[in-house]
């Protein structure tokens, strides 16, 4: 427990360093928010007025101190573009991104483990061959392309699924329907990785002495495979899942654009193009904290699945 508490506390200085680096880096990039907001009609007078309104004409250190003081109060500032509260925007966006990440991870795990275990149990058969082809397909196809293909098939051709938006939190069925395609698009590529790990791990475990003993005791193949072998075979899968979740979270950026879903990825892209400092800084912090928490939870899960692991 001390290990995890220490790791959790360690996230704080990491975030502070990240915020500081991002804060100053952003202000070194040419093309500030005034141009992004005012566009082609930007004149020196209107730029000056914009910068005065948002305090961008103050010394950098003053702006930094002001921002950090706000951060301590959990005030992430306001968007330069539409004046909205960044905290409120994040409060709306983060749950959608987390939901998509969890759904895609579930797809990745269920599909990857199922196919991987089947491939291992039916090694050398057409099932094994098909599984490896599936893995190749998953590695090769970009998730945004897969997203568009799914839209063409399930929305335009078949008319089964809506293709944009995330739906309303009050309408669970609609929420779920709008989650299917983006979760598949995000989850399938990482399912390929899980499948390969699960297959290899299962193949390594199956010849073990303890399983020979279990078979000799008369246990059915199903019990041997899924109760005794799978548990040990899943240990390496757990660490891959943690990596995958981080990858999936990063990839939500593109899929949120393709499927016009709200989320922190969409906020991030918009804030980059618009030089919306407050939004950009805050979304980067959220991403960093999420990745750190995922890593922490992966370590925790690893220790649960493998009692041999003890953190000191």
């Amino acid at each position, binding site marked *: 427990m001390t290990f995890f508490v220490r790791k959790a506390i360690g996230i704080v200085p990491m975030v502070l360093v990240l915020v500081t680096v991002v804060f100053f880096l952003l202000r070194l990039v040419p093309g*500030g928010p005034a141009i992004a907001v005012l566009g082609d009609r930007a004149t020196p007078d209107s730029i000056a007025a914009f910068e005065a309104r948002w305090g961008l004409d103050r010394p950098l250190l003053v702006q930094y101190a002001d921002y950090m003081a706000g951060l301590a109060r959990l005030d992430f500032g306001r968007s330069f573009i539409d004046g909205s509260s960044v905290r409120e925007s994040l409060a709306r966006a983060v749950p959608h991104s987390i939901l998509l990440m969890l759904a895609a991870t579930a797809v990745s795990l269920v599909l990857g483990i199922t196919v991987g275990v089947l491939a291992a149990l039916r090694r050398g058969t057409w099932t094994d061959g098909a599984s490896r082809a599936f893995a190749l397909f998953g590695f090769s196809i970009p998730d945004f392309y897969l997203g568009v293909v799914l839209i*063409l098939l399930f929305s*335009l051709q078949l008319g089964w699924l809506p293709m944009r938006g995330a739906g309303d939190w009050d309408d669970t069925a609609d929420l779920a329907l709008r989650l299917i395609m983006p979760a598949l698009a995000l989850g399938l590529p990482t399912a390929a990785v899980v499948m390969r790990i699960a297959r290899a791990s299962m193949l390594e475990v199956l010849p073990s002495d303890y399983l020979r003993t279990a078979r000799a005791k008369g246990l059915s193949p199903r019990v041997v495979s899924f109760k005794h072998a799978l548990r040990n075979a899943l240990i390496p899968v757990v660490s891959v899942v943690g990596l995958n979740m981080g990858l999936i979270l990063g990839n939500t950026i593109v899929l949120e654009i393709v499927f016009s879903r709200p989320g922190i990825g*969409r*906020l991030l892209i918009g804030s980059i193009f618009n030089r919306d400092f407050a939004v950009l800084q805050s979304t980067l912090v959220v991403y960093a904290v999420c990745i750190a928490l995922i890593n922490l939870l992966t370590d925790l899960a690893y220790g649960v699945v493998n009692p041999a692991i003890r953190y000191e």
Partner: protein
Amino acid sequence: MLPSTNAPRRRVLALLIGALAIASLALTTAVAQADLAEEQVLRYATDGRQFPPLDPSLGANNISFPVQNMVFDSLVRFPPGSPRLDAIEPALAESWEASENGRVWTFRLRQGVQFHRGYGELTSADVAFSLERAKGEASVVAGSYRNIAAIETPDPYTVVVRLAEPDAFFLTGVANKYGGWIVSQAALEDMGQDAYSLRPVGSGPFMVEDVVPGEVLHLVRHDGYWRGQPIIERIEYLLMPDLTARTLALINGEVDVIRGAVSPEWSATVTNAGMNLGFSAPGQFILMFNMELEPFDDVRVRQAFAYAIGRDAVMAFYGDTAIPMYTNVPPYVMGALSAEELPEPLRYERDVERARALLAEAGFPNGLEIDALASENPDYNNPLQIWKELWADAGIIVNYTAVDHPTYHARIRSEPHTLIPYGGVKAPHPNDWLGDWYTSQGGLNFSHYGQVDADGDGTVDSIDEYVAAARATLDPEAQQAAWTAAQLQLLEDMPTFPSHVVKIAFALRPEVDLGYELASTVVDGVEIWETTRLLSR
């Protein structure tokens, strides 16, 4: 006298005719109603990632304009679907008059126009308030309103605007765009700037119900709209930055109107899918030469660059989505000279030999090489890539560095650069096109025309007098003479190469009946008015 047996028959006949008339009227109405979709909810998807401030003095881009046009009214308006200055029609102002010298404009307001959400009647005080804000320091559109010297409101329905200089085109400033949109003073003071920018109050056919920043803006109809209750009940104005996603959503029926692309392939894709196309008042694309930097301080070099490229190659690339521009005033704007009206040398058709000869005369017999900055924005980058290859045929090597669009605009304003490709959309009269970019006080005059000796005769060359002359007179012939002189001089001096006009396409589902023909638009988007409706699929 015998009793008339015809009287009862005539009564019956009259009754029958009356009944038939009523029945056919009812039937016609029923048929018309049956054409309408049951749900009058319009979904409009545009590009962009965040909503800009919707306050007309603070937000002025292609994302805000269509919404501002739905929410606000103006004193006059361009006819829906047309940017013609000579067809401007009454809106909040029932009538207006200009003094002979074009300095004093008097507007008589329509009575009983109501703001949204119970903020009362629109009066002259609101008009004065709006115009004062438009010319204020913080306004992004102040440049177009600096000429306003004073605004008087002798009574609640009369506005008198006094200009510092005569302006024959003042009406474009009070039409439906930029500072012409009238805000509610009471609402702004009540709500505060930030809240008002997110959820503004106007008197237009639709009002903002709520906004989810970065995602969607919901509008509902203004039942008390003075032109009549809009047919459309709700509008969802969606931000969908990915063109593919927008296009698929349109074809799938999840949205009804989308902002499209400048691409013949895209246009063909949507029309093949059964959608309708409309085009926005096009933007102009030019190439400015910085005459404060060598070698562009020499008119022969600038002309050489122009002759080396022409327009055919760019037109071949854009197909139907662009039209060539031969002068610095777009061809669809009144007062623009056509190619046929120009002497041959000033048409700058591609002539590589002439370009080489001019370079040799200017001291570059073996060609020259320069560095330039470019924007990654395809509208800027695509022509530049084409020109780079064409210049090479004339011995001109251009090494350009592409940066993202906001960086590009920041750098051209803070650093000197040799070549400055630039695009923009302006009001549909020549003075607006000539003002910012070519007059000595123009805020976007990156060529520095009007500030330097452009033709090497030792004197500063300028079109300021022509622009002022056109503004100072209401006589169309005198205006045309001034514009003609300005355009010819600019072509001779070649501070910029006028290349093409880009048409921005919009796609609409066949069920969308705008209530007018979308030939063009001043609001850089599809105008949704009270006549717009959705037909049943």
